[in-house]
C-alpha cells in the first residue's frame, strides 16, 4: 500500500527544489500561501454549515417563553405560600392551593400559549429533535431529581429535629410542615434552589449573552439577591422560602418579559398570504 503522506511530502520537496533551481521561490511561496488561504476559506464555509445545523436551537429561546414559564412556577409557589398565611383564619383557605396549582401546571400552558399565539405565526413553527427522543426519559429524571431532593431534605430535617430533641432544645412534636428551623439542611435546600435556578438560567442564556449582555446582570442578581433577602428575613424555612421564590420569580419574569419585548421589536409578522 502506498504511503500517501510520504508521496505528497516527496512531491512537495521535489517542487521546492525545482523552484529553487529555477529561481522561482517567490512564486512558490505565493502559491503555497494561496493554497493555505483557500483551505481556510473552505473550512470556514464548513464551519458555517455546522452552525446552520445548530441555528434552530437558538430559535427555541428567542421569545422568552421558557423564562416566563419558570417565572410562572416560582411566582405560583410564592403567591401560594403568601395566600396560605393570609387565608389561615378563614374557612375558604383552600383557595391558597390555586396559585400553587398554577405554579405546577401553569408553566406548560404559558409556554404553549406564547408559542401558539405569538412565535409560530410570527417566525414559524419548529419542533426540536430531542422532543421526540428524550421526553419521557428526561421527565422521569427530573421527577427523580425532585423526589430525591425532597427525600434527602425530609430525612435530614427529621434527624436534625431528633438530635435537637435529644439535646433538649425543642419538642419533637412540632410539625415538620408548619415549622422547619433554618438548620444546615434548610440552608443547603435554599442554596440548591438558588444554584439550580442560576444554572438553568445560564443554560438558557448560552449563545445569547454576547447580544444581550444584560443577562449577566440578571444572573448575578439571581445568585446574590436570595442571600441578601435571606440575611434580612427571619423565621424558619417556611417563612424564608416565599420571599426567595418571589424574588427568583420576578427575576425570571423580568428576563422573560425583556426577551419577549426584544423579540416582538425585532421581528415582524409575515404578510397575510405567506404560503
Amino acid at each position, binding site marked *: 500500500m502506498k504511503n500517501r503522506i510520504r508521496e505528497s511530502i516527496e512531491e512537495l520537496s521535489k517542487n521546492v527544489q525545482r523552484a529553487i533551481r529555477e529561481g522561482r521561490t517567490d512564486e512558490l511561496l505565493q502559491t503555497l500561501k494561496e493554497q493555505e488561504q483557500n483551505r481556510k476559506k473552505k473550512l470556514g464555509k464548513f464551519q458555517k454549515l455546522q452552525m446552520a*445545523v445548530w441555528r*434552530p436551537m437558538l430559535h427555541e429561546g428567542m421569545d422568552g417563553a421558557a423564562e416566563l414559564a419558570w417565572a410562572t412556577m416560582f411566582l405560583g409557589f410564592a403567591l401560594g405560600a403568601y395566600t396560605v398565611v393570609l387565608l389561615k383564619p378563614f374557612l375558604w383557605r383552600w383557595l391558597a392551593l390555586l396559585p400553587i396549582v398554577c405554579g405546577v401546571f401553569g408553566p406548560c400552558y404559558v409556554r404553549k400559549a406564547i408559542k401558539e399565539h405569538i412565535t409560530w405565526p410570527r417566525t414559524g413553527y419548529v*419542533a426540536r429533535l430531542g422532543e421526540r427522543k428524550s421526553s419521557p426519559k428526561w421527565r422521569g429524571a427530573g421527577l427523580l431529581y425532585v423526589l430525591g431532593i425532597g427525600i434527602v431534605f425530609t430525612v435530614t430535617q427529621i434527624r436534625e429535629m431528633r438530635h435537637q430533641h435529644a439535646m433538649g432544645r425543642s419538642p419533637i412534636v412540632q410539625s415538620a410542615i408548619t415549622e422547619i428551623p433554618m438548620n444546615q439542611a434548610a440552608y443547603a435546600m435554599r442554596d440548591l434552589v438558588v444554584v439550580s435556578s442560576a444554572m438553568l438560567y445560564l443554560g438558557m442564556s448560552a449563545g445569547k449573552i454576547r447580544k444581550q449582555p444584560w443577562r449577566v446582570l440578571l444572573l448575578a442578581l439571581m445568585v446574590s439577591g436570595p442571600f441578601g433577602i435571606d440575611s434580612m428575613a427571619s423565621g424558619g424555612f417556611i417563612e424564608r422560602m416565599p420571599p426567595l421564590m418571589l424574588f427568583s420569580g420576578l427575576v425570571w419574569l423580568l428576563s422573560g418579559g425583556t426577551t419577549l419585548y426584544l423579540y416582538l421589536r425585532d421581528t415582524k409578522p409575515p404578510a397575510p398570504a405567506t404560503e
Partner: protein
Amino acid sequence: MNGQLRAISELDRVLHEPGRLMIAALLSGVKECDFLFLLRETEMNKGNLSSHLARLEEAGYVEIEKTYRGKVPMTLLRLTRKGRRAFEEYRESILAAF
C-alpha cells in the same frame, strides 16, 4: 485519482447546491418545521424556496405535509431518513475532501 479529488467528485449534487444545502442543514437540526421558519432563516423568496423543496422532495430527501393549524394553512417539512443519511454522508465527504 487522488482520494481527496475523488471525494469531491462523489459529492451529492442535489445537496451540493447552496440553497438546498442550507435547507438540508437547517432541517437536519430539527424534527420538523414549517415553511415560514425556512423562509425567514434562509432569506430566500417563496418561489426559490418552493422550487428547492420540490427538488429535495423529488430526490426523496424531504417530506412535505400540507396541513392546517386552526383555519390557517401550514406546510410542515421534515428530512426523511434517506435525506438525513445523505446529509451526513455529504458532511463526511466534504470533511474528507478538505
